[in-house]
């Protein structure tokens, strides 16, 4: 169907950061080399992943197969549009996050461990993106769990340990579910390879299909923080900010969501799911989560906690969009991976910069911060507007296609849900902007406009780049070789459409 | 009747089974380590008895086959097996006895109940104990 080319780049893209991790562990306490290796790997990976974009846009699929891990289960990479999209987002953000982390983590302990695992995380994320089959995906998925664990644990205090334990309990539980689902899947189909239009068919039998669906969705749902399984995410906020950013915007939650997308598009396939009707329930759940998580976010006083709940809410946009099973909604689901990632990572970066610059962590402490750190807060504003769904920002694109997709699916109610969620987003973002810009600085010593907090330019830079991306993704989505066209291609493949969407 | 007749013809085997179970009973219920070993020995004996019985033949001679001797001869194979088995049993028994001696030296008893008591008592002071008793 699609021309497959054997290419080593997928493998290299995974290995680069693996090698980098090794190098970082090896150089131990030499900060310059640590930074060098981290950045070098980030850059190389970035180049490698992006170099595959033209080919993917031209409809090529890059594959790299190893031998079989188990009979019928190969271990290999296959770069299709959806996977490449995810990899593009991750590798781009990794460059930024690495730079940011180099600034943010300066002076912290165990830095070689931190940056080593940091590199491993992205390696596994790209592995997830490029996985040819569920097992490969699962391998990297579990590795990701393990690699993020030391990062969450980084502070090594009681709260960090608790959070990390919670994270592990949840994600491992989820991993178990996925494994069970995979076993079921393999036993009924004899394969785990992800096919463009799904590998299951109705002849399998309803109860098996339901079991596989529930297991896989619940399993991936843990990382995607689908709501009854979300509790680890707010707890994991104790991690250093670059890690939170990585968890929330790039790697972990997106891996879960990506798994859900894979399940829906490449395991079940659109037609089958539509016949089965399971997706309706998933959509309903996602709709509820969108609202409930937003309300929760509204109640949080800590900035990062608010961000965490917002993430939960935003991820359910993707799940909802995927569950609607219409081409435009699929497009929304895929493009939101990027939109949410860039918007959310901006917010996290800003939260971290504020914490580093002024020591403030709570929403009500933000008064006047806008004047201390105008550029940072401007970026924050942009990103939050994106979440509210203001046109020109990334978030609007998602909302737009999601709405059309929902209407296509005959589920206009979700447009309403989305509007409500957007309002709730406004309700928790705008007060922060309000605090930062309109409230005067408390008259405390040190709050002097003349000596503004010094925040490393390695932190400010990524913030501004990310904020620029938020606009670029919204306003310039259609520019040539922007991710949008790739997302569109991915959505088309899932629906076997030859012509461009609308 | 038939049952009784069959039982009678297999009485050797049944005795072996009874012995085996007796040994097992002792092994399982006795709280005394030495008695447990004795129970084990009874079991061993019963198994040897059983195996050697399989080689028995009515009116048979020992398998010393001089040229021209017509037989019937008992089967030599079970004998050889049992001989090996006995040696193994001796080995195991002696090792068990040595271990019991050591247990006795360390816990001051060969009764499981008392050993359990001293273990429980030792548990509380385990940490301090461990370093102190490392030279034992």
């Amino acid at each position: 169907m699609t021309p497959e080319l054997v290419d080593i780049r997928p493998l290299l893209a995974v290995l680069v950061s693996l090698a980098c991790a090794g190098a970082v562990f090896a150089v131990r306490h030499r900060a310059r080399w640590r930074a060098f290796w981290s950045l070098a790997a980030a850059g190389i990976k970035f180049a490698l992943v992006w170099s595959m974009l033209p080919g993917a846009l031209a409809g090529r699929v890059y594959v790299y197969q190893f031998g079989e891990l188990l009979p019928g289960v190969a271990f290999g990479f296959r770069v299709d549009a959806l996977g490449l999209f995810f990899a593009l987002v991750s590798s781009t953000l990794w460059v930024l996050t690495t730079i940011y982390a180099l600034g943010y983590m300066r002076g912290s302990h165990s830095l070689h461990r931190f940056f080593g695992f940091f590199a491993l995380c992205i390696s596994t994320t790209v592995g997830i993106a490029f996985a040819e089959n569920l097992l490969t995906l699962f391998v990297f998925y579990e590795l990701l769990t393990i690699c993020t664990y030391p990062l969450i644990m980084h502070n090594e205090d009681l709260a960090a340990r608790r959070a990390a334990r919670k994270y592990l309990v949840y994600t491992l539980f989820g991993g178990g579910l996925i494994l069970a689902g995979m076993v079921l899947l393999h036993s009924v189909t004899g394969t785990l390879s992800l096919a463009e239009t799904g590998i299951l068919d109705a002849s399998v039998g309803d109860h098996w299909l339901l079991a596989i669906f529930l297991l896989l969705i619940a399993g991936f749902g843990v990382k995607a923080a689908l709501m009854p399984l979300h509790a680890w995410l707010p707890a994991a906020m104790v991690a250093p900010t670059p890690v939170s950013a990585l968890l929330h915007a790039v790697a972990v939650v997106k891996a879960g969501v990506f798994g859900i997308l894979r399940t829906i598009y490449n395991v079940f396939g659109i037609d089958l799911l539509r016949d089965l009707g399971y997706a309706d329930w998933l959509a309903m759940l996602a709709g509820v989560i969108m609202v409930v998580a937003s309300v929760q976010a509204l109640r949080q006083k800590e900035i990062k906690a608010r961000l965490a709940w917002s993430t939960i809410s935003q991820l359910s946009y993707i799940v909802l969009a995927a569950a609607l099973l219409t081409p435009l909604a699929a497009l929304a689901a895929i493009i939101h991976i990027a939109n949410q990632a860039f918007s959310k990572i901006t917010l996290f970066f800003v939260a971290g910069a504020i914490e580093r610059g002024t020591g403030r962590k709570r929403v009500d402490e933000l008064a006047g911060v806008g004047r201390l750190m105008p550029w940072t807060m401007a970026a924050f504003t942009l990103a939050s507007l994106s979440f509210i769904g203001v046109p020109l920002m990334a978030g609007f694109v998602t909302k737009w296609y999601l709405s059309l997709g929902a209407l296509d699916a005959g589920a206009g109610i979700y447009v309403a849900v989305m509007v409500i969620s957007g309002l709730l987003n406004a309700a928790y973002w705008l007060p922060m902007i309000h605090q930062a810009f309109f409230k005067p600085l408390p008259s405390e010593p040190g709050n002097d406009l003349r000596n503004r907090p010094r925040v490393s330019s390695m932190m400010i830079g990524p913030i501004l780049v990310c904020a620029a991306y938020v606009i670029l993704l919204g306003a310039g989505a259609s520019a040539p070789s922007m991710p949008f066209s790739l997302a569109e291609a991915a959505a088309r493949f899932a629906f076997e459409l030859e012509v461009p969407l609308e | 009747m038939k049952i009784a007749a069959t039982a009678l013809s297999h009485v050797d085997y049944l005795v072996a089974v009874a012995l085996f179970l007796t040994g097992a009973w002792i092994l399982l219920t006795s709280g005394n380590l030495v008695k447990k070993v004795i129970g084990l020995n009874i079991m061993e004996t019963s198994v040897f008895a059983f195996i050697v019985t399989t080689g028995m033949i009515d009116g048979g001679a020992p398998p010393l086959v001089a040229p021209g001797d017509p037989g019937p001869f008992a089967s030599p194979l079970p004998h050889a097996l049992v001989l090996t088995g006995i040696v193994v049993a001796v080995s195991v028994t002696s090792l068990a006895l040595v271990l019991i001696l050591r247990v006795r030296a360390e816990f001051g008893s060969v009764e499981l109940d008392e050993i359990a008591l001293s273990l429980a008592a030792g548990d509380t002071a385990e940490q301090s104990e461990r370093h102190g008793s490392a030279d034992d």
Partner: protein
Amino acid sequence: MNRRRAGRILTAVLIAALAVPLMYGMVQLPAPGHADAPAHTNVSAGYIERGAELGGSENLVTGVLLNFRALDTFGEVLVIFTAWLAVAAVAGTASNAERDPVPPSPVVDYVIRLLGPFIAIFALFVIVNGHVLPGGGFQGGVLLGAMLILLSLVMDAETVARAVSARSWIWLRATGVLVFAMVAVMGLPLAGYLFGLPDEPGLRQVLTVALELGIGIGGGAVLAGLFFAIAGADRS
């Protein structure tokens, strides 16, 4: 105590429950003593028919042990040597203080000292004639061991143990293993197989006797060693 009682009751039930199928199964076996049972018709018949001729020993048990199933016997020799190794590795932490200091009566003392050499000679006889008469290496070895144990009952165990140097004791105990291993390896050039005995009757005879001797000496020494170890007299 209640737990103990409950355990007993449970065990009783278990054993009773086991007894029925066990006995039922046993009576289904071919009855002992019948010549047409598989135990006699199958392999045994072959041994009895041609075993003496092929194996080279009229005592078929010895033939089976040393020739047909030599590997079993090698294993057996090793088990008992291992037992000694094990005992030697484990024992000794027990204190010697608890040995009974009271010597046996002079009569016993005298009788045993007198019997000792006779037992040894008898043991040697059993060992060397194992392939034609009832007996063999193990049996003789047990006799040797028993003699040593008897001696150490009347003399001090340590005295007996010291009769041979510790180093020699070890070699003596390993005799069985070593001789068996050597004969086994010699089988390769002589008979074409490991553990094989040559067809040439004289040579086979020599090797058989060597094996019997090795097993006997080694077995006796190990048995004595086990006793010494248990008695706390082992100085190794």
